[in-house]
């Protein structure tokens, strides 16, 4: 188990790479529909705004960031993610937790 300090740093890095992914999809969205870069921002569901194509774009953008920054490739949209009771893509924060979980499983 990582200590609190290391975990905070890792979470910050993960949030930053999610924000870069958000930048990437915001570039394709009208100003009024752009996502704020905050952990509590909803991505999917009623208060979200990402349709299935938007979600594909976001997943790919974030996976590219993970590969560049952590030098591992993750499949964020695998069966595990889709079968979880709480949708990991519901908010920026839940997605960050899910990525942290996957990275930890890779020993990072």
């Amino acid at each position: 188990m990582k200590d609190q300090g290391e975990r905070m740093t890792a979470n910050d890095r993960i949030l930053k790479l999610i924000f870069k992914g958000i930048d990437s999809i915001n570039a394709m969205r009208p100003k009024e529909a752009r996502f704020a870069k905050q952990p509590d921002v909803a991505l999917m569901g009623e208060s979200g705004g990402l349709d299935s194509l938007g979600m594909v774009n976001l997943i790919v953008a974030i996976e590219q960031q993970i590969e560049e920054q952590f030098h591992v490739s993750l499949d964020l949209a695998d069966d595990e993610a889709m079968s979880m009771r709480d949708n990991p893509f519901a908010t920026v924060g839940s997605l960050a937790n899910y990525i942290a979980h996957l990275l930890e499983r890779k020993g990072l």
Partner: protein
Amino acid sequence: MSSPTCRGVILSDFNAANLADCLKSSDDLPVVESTVVPFGEAIPAMFQRNSEFWRGEPEFAVIWTQPQSVVDVFRDVLRYQSISLDRLLAQVDEYAALLVNLTDRVRFVLVPTWVAPTSYRDFGLLDLKPGIGIANTLMRMNMRLSENLERSAHVHLLNAQRWIESVGNRAFNPKLWYMGKIPFGNEVFLEAAREIKAALRGLYGHSRKLIIVDLDDTLWGGIVGDIGWENLTLGGHHYLGEAYVDFQRALKILTHRGVLLGIVSKNEEATALEAIRRHPEMVLRPDDFAGWRINWQDKAENVVELTRSLNLGLQAVVFIDDSPMERARVREALPEVLVPEWPDDKCLFESALHSLLCFNPPAITEEDRRRTEMYRSEQQREGLKRQMVSLDEWLKSLEVRVTVEPLNETNLQRTVQLLNKTNQMNLTTRRMADAELLKWARAPNHRLWVFRVSDKFGDSGITGIASLEVQGGTGTIVDFVLSCRVMGRNVEEAMIHSITKHACSIGLENVSAQFIPTGKNKPCLEFWRRSGFKPDQSEERFWWWLDAAYPRPDSVAIEGSLD
């Protein structure tokens, strides 16, 4: 643009929704709304004139296909099978014909070139071998497509390979393909959207026409007033010197595409001009500049003055200056002027210039190539005007010649360019593409003439258009267009003389002109008010009864034929 929002249709054999989103979200003008045809229906929609996707009169279509989807033989190339090159090229020809046919549904068709599909991009030594290499075959296909489309002024190829190269290894992502049927990374679509919008600006005549540059640390290194022209960093065996020379060369090349250059610099004029004339490594010399304001005044004021002296609007101007302060000043004072952020690193000046997608005409005419020379002639005319006592004396001394000719295939391109660009002396400001204009001019009751103007200082080329619609005994002037470069030299009166002379020869009783106001064509109304035509009650329709001949201005010689 012809309308605030430019509507388009995107047809593709892949999921192109991201391209539509990029076009919509980009801040660049024009504002674009596009309908994406579902990729399974795109090819059928190209054949079906009545397809719902063509309803609502979209102005443009983007047709972006993968080569293996539209050229069967190319699939064999991907499988390493031997192919008949003739058959492959014949299929390219068929596809090109299909693209040309779309021009009866939209004004412009934009076609990104074919690139190799995601999973077939590295055949190493074989890639460029004739008859087997994918890259070699694709080059041939794109060349053939380009040759086919050259005959259509409405279908334009866009270089998609450049977008791929500029994005690098993010250009393709297999997951986007498997999950979304999207063959390119989204940065490719952002590049594509930038270039599609730049193409639309060019096609609608909104390319920038004047680059105003600073001198010190912009065209050369160093402050000429402090160190003298002999000590400037320019050319020679110095990496920055070479960078400045390349930047100047890139600017000069733009003048061959019809872009004008101007200087706004805080310097002593004599000192700066001496450097431009005498430095052996200068690429740009005084004759390459349409004008300059070299003094110690505010740069924004100088930009306005210089632009006005060239009869251009500020929306035609790009201002390049190494100083962030000067850029901020001009940007704030003159929001219509494009003031790009400029790199500190001089080595990046040339590439920064190339990255400005604002000089994008669809064609280059002889007038474009000689534009700087024409403006220099204009300055000589103005010099003579200051010496002359009266306006009449000055006009006579110019020895203006107007040559009239009917619209034909040879002058069509320049005529359409003039029709779509001219704002001030434009009676109705109607904008038309060349096929539309040619069709209109060929109707039995329509006449359309173009006017070439020259004088003792030079040839301004085709600078006027007039057209007439005949109904009963009345001829209605539909277009009356004159480039601001030759306004006020009695060319206007010479054009009316020609129109009315023709109207008289075919037995008409009168000729009228209905002025349609825009935000920019007040000079045209003012001309018609003093033209001698009689205004009606609205004071925007003007009449001439042909029982009297409209006088030919003494100062103008009219040549050519109206038939």
